């Protein structure tokens, strides 16, 4: 039985209490992307500035639970200054981390595990790994992935892959 400490690691609570990169860039010129979790009402508003190949700036607004807000904050710290390609790689890696459990829920067997390992391969998630405990709480996975899905939307708009 996973305990609360698996979910609420200290670093997560830290990001929740003191979120990084909080606010909204004027848009335009920044790109604005909104994400909703329809089941719980969490929302993430990202404004991001992509110059050339680089995510030069990115702010986070919105409201939600500690997991969705911490995940947004950690995402912003991880992505800011990175190239679009690196950001996309992070998205893939993070979703892979989360999908291990999601796909099991879907009854797809264990293949997804291997896939996830591949996507993770070589990507440094750093602090983000603290969110790994979320997979033991299936209902909260959507809280953790919300910011990342929203980032993906935003990147698709600025720099279609």
């Amino acid at each position: 039985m996973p305990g609360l400490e698996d979910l609420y690691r200290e670093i997560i609570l830290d990001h929740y209490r003191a979120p990084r990169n909080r606010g909204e860039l004027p848009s335009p010129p920044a790109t604005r992307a909104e994400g909703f979790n329809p089941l719980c009402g969490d929302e993430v508003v990202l404004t991001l500035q992509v110059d050339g190949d680089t995510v030069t700036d990115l702010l986070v607004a919105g409201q939600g639970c500690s997991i969705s807000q911490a995940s947004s904050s950690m995402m912003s710290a991880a992505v800011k200054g990175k190239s679009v390609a690196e950001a996309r790689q992070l998205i893939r890696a993070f979703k892979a981390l989360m999908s291990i459990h999601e796909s099991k829920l879907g009854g797809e067997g264990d293949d997804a595990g291997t896939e996830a390992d591949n996507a993770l391969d070589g990507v440094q998630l750093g602090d983000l790994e603290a969110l790994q405990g979320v997979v033991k709480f299936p209902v909260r996975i959507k809280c953790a992935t919300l910011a990342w899905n929203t980032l993906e939307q935003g990147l698709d708009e600025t720099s279609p892959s």
Partner: protein
Amino acid sequence: MSLDVSLDVAALRRDFPVLEREFHGHRLVYLDSAATSQKPTSVIEVMDTFYRHTNANVHRGVYTLAEEATAAFESARARMARFLHASTPSEIVFTKNATEAMNLVARSWGGAHLHEGDVVVLSLMEHHANVVPWHMLAAERGIELRWIPLTDDGCLDLESLPQLLEGAALLSVTSLSNVLGTINDVRHLADAAHAADALIAVDAAQTIPHVEVDVTAWDADFVAWTGHKMLGPTGIGGLWARENLLEGMPPFLGGGEMIRDVTVDGFTTNDIPWKFEAGTPPIAEAVGLEAAIDYLDDVGLEAVRRHEIELTGYALRALHERFDDRITTYGPSDLSIRGGVISFLLDGIHAHDVSQVLDEDAVAVRAGHHCAKPLMRHLGVPATTRASFYLYNDEADADALVESLARAEKFFAV
């Protein structure tokens, strides 16, 4: 601490097998009956027996088994009609849930009677089941939606009602808010609607399980409900509507059962209520629903209501005593117009996180927007935590809630 309640909750609890479960070493404290109620053994067993003994399709066979199944199904309809004080079983249309019932009103009655510029009046405390069908009709038809505002106490602000109803075709409101607990005075609303030549549809999904309803005394035109919140199974709900309204409405879904005749060129419809029941209906579910009504009648809705008033009052007092100004609760303070629903926020802790900590203590509450996003926007919060009570809850459950909340507060303390 003990309340002077007339329900023997300890005895009732024994009828609900799920309440024997334990999670993480704690007994289940089920405080989410506004989402769905638990089921007594009698309801579970009657469906089990139906499948073992009586199962057949209805209205279709000459043979004895089919006749028994049909009698059981139609008996449930008659039972529901009596429970709601309807004048005839033909006024009871079975649907899959309350949501389908509201869609039936919007699509069938609304589709036939509402045109561009026509007005439907809703309130800011509606469940999405009584919002989205009207948005869909608005997008299709250009009808206008008007919204009854709320008072600070979470009641309908009726001052503007006459103006809102001016030229309106329908007032569609909940009789008990699933977030605020507010009990609306349906008779008063019906009189206001009728005085303005409008009809009134009532989303009674949260009322019928908890408060005695008399659709005739309400003078309502449409009333929607759902089985799974009233001790019954999933997969069944329904609409009561006045016979002459149903008679005049076009069909909703098309298929078997709802037709009189079909040719390659068209079709004619069956009599009410079958006109609105396309395809094989929820047969075993209807049988379960009848057992649920029997159970509620045996316990007595008056006693249930009294119990919930007392328990809600007890819990509200306990919450405010313990958390003082660190808790915000929503809804009317007058318990006589409030159901057993308490939505709240604990300072600085998101509803989801509260609910997560509570789960460790096996306290099951709901966190989120409760399918009432216009209301959440009005309250200015993204989500609340909601504890809701039913006949199987007692003060010990309320105490467990308070204790677990204290633990959440401690866990998230800076």
